[in-house]
């Protein structure tokens, strides 16, 4: 093979590599951007409802300053589950475009259904996003109150997951059966 052809092929391969790298870097940056709080509250549906309720809660402000943003609780960190969640979120854009929850009244009308969707996901994935920060193996029971110790022991014995007790802590609780009463197959 002539040397010039080898050089051309090498240049093409390098170019392709650069393009693929650039596309991947742009994709990763784009994904990271969609995980920011600023992106999530870019829509008034989120900013005026769930985000307004989140403000002042323990996950927003606390003594240590460690804070959870929307994506910490609602988007998996692992690449494949995260991509699946992002694909699902694109369907939610349709709801935004059609104004499904663009007024307070419409949001309240759908609040239970929205909460139930999140509860269902969290029950099925064993509150995976809670456990990204709250590692049960790292919890020191001696530092917990007597009541918390008893509740956690009971939850473990009954196979309950975080969301089945710790619901309505970052957003208002909807009117209706809670995660413990829902018959959700794990």
């Amino acid at each position, binding site marked *: 093979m002539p040397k010039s052809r080898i050089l051309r092929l090498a240049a093409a391969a390098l170019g392709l590599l650069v393009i693929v790298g650039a596309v991947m870097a742009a994709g990763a940056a784009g994904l990271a951007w969609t995980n920011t709080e600023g992106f999530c509250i870019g829509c008034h549906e989120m900013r005026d409802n769930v985000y307004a309720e989140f403000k*002042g*809660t323990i996950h927003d402000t606390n003594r240590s300053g460690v804070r959870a943003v929307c994506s910490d609780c609602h988007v998996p960190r692992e690449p494949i589950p995260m991509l699946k969640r992002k694909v699902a979120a694109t369907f939610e854009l349709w709801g935004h475009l059609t104004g499904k929850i663009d007024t307070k009244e419409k949001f309240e009308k759908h609040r239970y259904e929205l909460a139930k969707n999140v509860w269902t996901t969290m029950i099925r994935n064993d509150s995976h996003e809670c456990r990204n920060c709250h590692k049960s193996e790292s919890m020191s029971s001696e530092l917990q109150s*007597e*009541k918390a110790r*008893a*509740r956690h022991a*009971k939850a473990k014995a009954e196979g309950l997951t975080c969301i089945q*007790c710790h*619901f*309505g*802590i970052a957003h208002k*609780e909807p*009117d*209706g*059966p*809670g*995660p*413990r*009463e829902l018959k959700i197959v794990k």
Partner: protein
Amino acid sequence: MRVTISLLALCAAAIAPLAHAQQVDTSAAEALMKKSGCLKCHSVSAKKEGPPFKETAAKYKGKADAEKALVTHLTTNPKIKVDGKEELHDALKTKNPADVLNVARYILSR
């Protein structure tokens, strides 16, 4: 005159429950309950370790001493039973009687 007085009395009786509900500062009640950790065991309508507020409201519905009973429950660390075991019910984290009454009214108005 008698008819007017009767009508006024009827109106007063009709709006009495509304007046009771209007006296609740929902945001203040929810903030104090959050601060006091009430929502760890109770919720408005769903099942947790403690009874939902709607259940408590139904239990006390029509009872004249409802507010008083609830204020006592929320301030005196009474003994309660959770899963058959006795424990002390936490008190609201405030020393202001008006704030306690507001929470009692919030619960009763669910």
